[in-house]
């Protein structure tokens, strides 16, 4: 049989592990999720990310990472909006973040990751 188009499991796991600290920081420090909520989110993100890597076509590693960060921000934003139930937060920085597009925040996180900034 022809080899499947998906990449090795280890490679996918490695991209996730290298990004995990940024993911956690974004969820907890930026989107203000609790540690426990963030851990739940990270489990879902890992499952989704493993499937993303097995889709048709091929995604280069950087694209995989940006996609993961984008999903992280989408998750964090949606979860926090749900917790707030439509009301604004007391925290102005959080309101500013929630007003931004998740993709834009993800690109910023990726740049930080590339520069090697500590979360």
């Amino acid at each position, binding site marked *: *049989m022809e080899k499947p188009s*998906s990449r090795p499991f280890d490679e996918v796991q490695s991209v996730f592990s290298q990004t995990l600290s940024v993911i956690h920081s974004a969820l907890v420090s930026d989107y203000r999720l609790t540690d426990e909520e963030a851990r739940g989110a990270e489990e879902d993100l890992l499952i*989704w990310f493993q*499937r993303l890597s097995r*889709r*048709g076509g*091929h995604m280069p590693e950087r694209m995989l990472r940006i*996609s993961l960060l984008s*999903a992280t921000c989408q998750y964090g934003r949606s979860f926090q909006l749900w917790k707030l139930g439509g009301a604004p937060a007391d925290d102005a920085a959080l309101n500013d973040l929630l007003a931004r597009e998740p993709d834009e925040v993800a690109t910023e996180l990726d740049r930080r990751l590339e520069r090697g900034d500590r979360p």
Partner: protein
Amino acid sequence: MTGRVIHFPRMPLSSEAGQAAADRVLNTPIPERAALADALALDDPETLLSLCSCLRRRLEASPAAVLEEADFLYRWIEKPLRDIGLFDERDYFLGETALLAGTACRQLSRRDEAHQWFERAEAGFRHTINVVGDLSRLSYQRLAERLEERQIDFVREMLPPLIDTFRKMDMHEDAVKCRFLEGLALMETDELADAVTLFHEIAEESENLGNPRLTASAYANLTHVYGMLGDAENAMAASAKAIPPLRKLDDRVALAKVQWGLATLLRETGKLPAAIGAYRRAQEDFQAIGMRADYAALNLVVADLLLEQGREVEALREVSEALPVIMELKMAPEGVAALALVHESVRRQKVDRGALRELHGYFEQLASGTS
């Protein structure tokens, strides 16, 4: 703000369980699936991912079956609105199943349906996280379809930017697939020497990428080009490199086209009875996989050879068999004079050979394959 509430999924299937679930789905007759949806885990993204992967591999073996399956999956995901997977997964599966259905339609020369499926694929892919990659894969299929519609200049204009996108995204196999379209365009414009050079380059590049399907497809196309050139030695050498891996991969579309290429070689070297036999074998292959357009195109080629042998009644029968399919599948655009002339000559019970040659030549140059 346009926040989206995330739904937390039930325990998902593992990828191995997803593969097993996909096998169970494919072994269940389509009309029975909806009632068994829970047991089949039909809305689990692992099942759908495995199904898409399996159907992608089967495209070259049985496009008609892939169309039926992809059509079912698309409709299943689309309505009623199902909560499938996380984030963009529902949109991805809508796009991917529509892309599979459209590709199968293209293989089967069902052009209007292919266009509709490609529109549906775009609607899904617009919302995926890898939107550039997904839409680029769709663009490739659309260009392949346009090539089959003889929009050669447009295809040549649009291929370089698409190749560039694929290369920037490290999607090297997709970039190579685009080069197949370049080669087919060269064949269409009778630049056969350039086509030979290009397909050799593609074979080498595919080999370096470790993709046996693309390598074998390059040799399948070389068989055809060398056949058109009447170059027996190289055509046979190319077919020897194409056939074993294509058999192993069960790529029945490409195998039928290799057979067509060998038949062309026999025709070009004046071995008419052997050529007719070889075309008949290619027709049997096409019939087995539901490729009616290719079958009909070969009716015309065989008719021409029969006329060469003075077998007018048989030739008339071949053309009469082909014309309804050519009309139904809109294989030639409106206004192709040769089609009207052949039609008229059949009505008068005497085939117009010049028009027949022009018409089958029109179909023949795009006989080689894309995937």
